[in-house]
């Protein structure tokens, strides 16, 4: 069972906490029930948003400044993060979890500034260092022809 399935199961059943002795890892481990619920709700919202973007991306209106994967570029989630595969040139890019998050935002139709803002919040990064690095990654991906405006 994958991580998304665990979160989905927890959301469906309402079992948000783990027994204390095993509560050191995994979603909700070591958290109070209300914290655990909040965390799982956040994760669930992200899953729904991502799946909506995957399935209905072609129907969603895309505003100015939004990006998308270039044609023939495929994205797949992996335990280590994700892969981007440019199938025309047969180049494979392995992404660490943070880079995978950035590409997920692209798939969801976010603009560059949206992505910066979301990463600042998600990773508690008020300095914006991570957001700057994400923008630098986006530039690299654009330069390599993996994402397009």
């Amino acid at each position: 069972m994958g991580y998304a399935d665990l979160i989905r199961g927890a959301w469906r059943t309402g079992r948000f906490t783990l027994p204390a002795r095993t509560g050191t890892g995994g979603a909700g481990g070591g958290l109070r029930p209300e914290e655990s619920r909040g965390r799982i709700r956040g994760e669930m919202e992200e899953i729904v948003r991502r799946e909506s973007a995957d399935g209905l991306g072609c129907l969603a209106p895309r505003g100015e400044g939004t990006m998308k994967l270039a044609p023939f570029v495929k994205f797949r989630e992996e335990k280590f993060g994700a892969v981007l595969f440019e199938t025309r040139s047969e180049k494979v890019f392995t992404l660490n979890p943070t880079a995978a998050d950035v590409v997920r935002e692209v798939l969801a139709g976010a603009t560059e500034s949206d992505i910066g803002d979301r990463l600042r919040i998600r990773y508690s990064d008020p300095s914006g260092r991570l957001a700057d690095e994400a923008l630098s990654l986006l530039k690299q991906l654009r330069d390599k022809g993996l994402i397009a405006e």
Partner: protein
Amino acid sequence: MPARPAARPRASRKTLPDASADGMRAPLYIGWQLTNACDLACVHCVEESGPGRAFKDELTRAEAFRVLEQIRDEQVPYVAFSGGEPFLHPHFLEMAAFLGSAGVALKVETNGRHLTPSNCGALADAGVCAVQVSLDAATPEAYAKVRPGGDFCRVLAGIRLLRSKGVAVEVNFTPTAFNVHEGPAAADLALAEGVCGFYTGRLILAGNASRARGLAPSEEQYAVFFQAMRRKAAECGGRMLVRCHEAGIVDEVRARMADPAALFVILPDGRVKLLNALPFVCGDLRSQTLAEVWKAFLRGWRSPKVAKFAADLAADPTLLQGLHRWIRL
């Protein structure tokens, strides 16, 4: 959303054959030999394909579609259909359309004899990523020597049709003693026809090629050919990718042993090979799921039998002649 530990966002690049299987939840690429039948009997064919040589137990339509559904569900991003000749498979275009609608990138490897307006239109409609056409010559005379019964002009017309429908075309050039001198001119021709990739490398002496005498270019011919291809790669930069695998199959097997790539080969009857250049079968998609076969694939590369074969192959490359006597791991 609460804080999570964050590493600097990083993307590491590799080309497909070097994309490690380690840590991947499914293949990144599947080469699927749809049928062993072919309507040409090329002297340099690495398979044992030819007219009337379809396996007796090739996958049925229902079985093939069960595999396709798993490819979609496991999110395999890239598939190549080959053969034999894929156009001789009764459900080839239907299968291509399925993958197109499932968002899986598809490459088709063909001898180029079936590129009619209707077939080219169907491939364009299926949204294929690229069609790789075997064109091992720049003239009809040299082409006929390596592909008896083949029609050079018909293949060229097919390439033009594909291009007119906006389909990306690649050319595969297999060098032999009879056509190696035409390599550079074939690359020029491909570039002039708007081809986006020109793929070549050393002849593999397996399958039909292992039975032909005097087929392999000499090392002197290879040296001249490789030098010319390096020059072409530089000349064509940005317009056509020229990829020449100079190392040969023994080096490829050695590299794969050290770090297996995230790709495997489906045979026409549903069995799955570790690598085209190895005789080892790690699973059977008739009786196993794709996920089960992927696990067996990862285990298979660690088998002592595979390590021994790779070591023996390095000492005796003629072992490639037994490539089609498959060994179940």
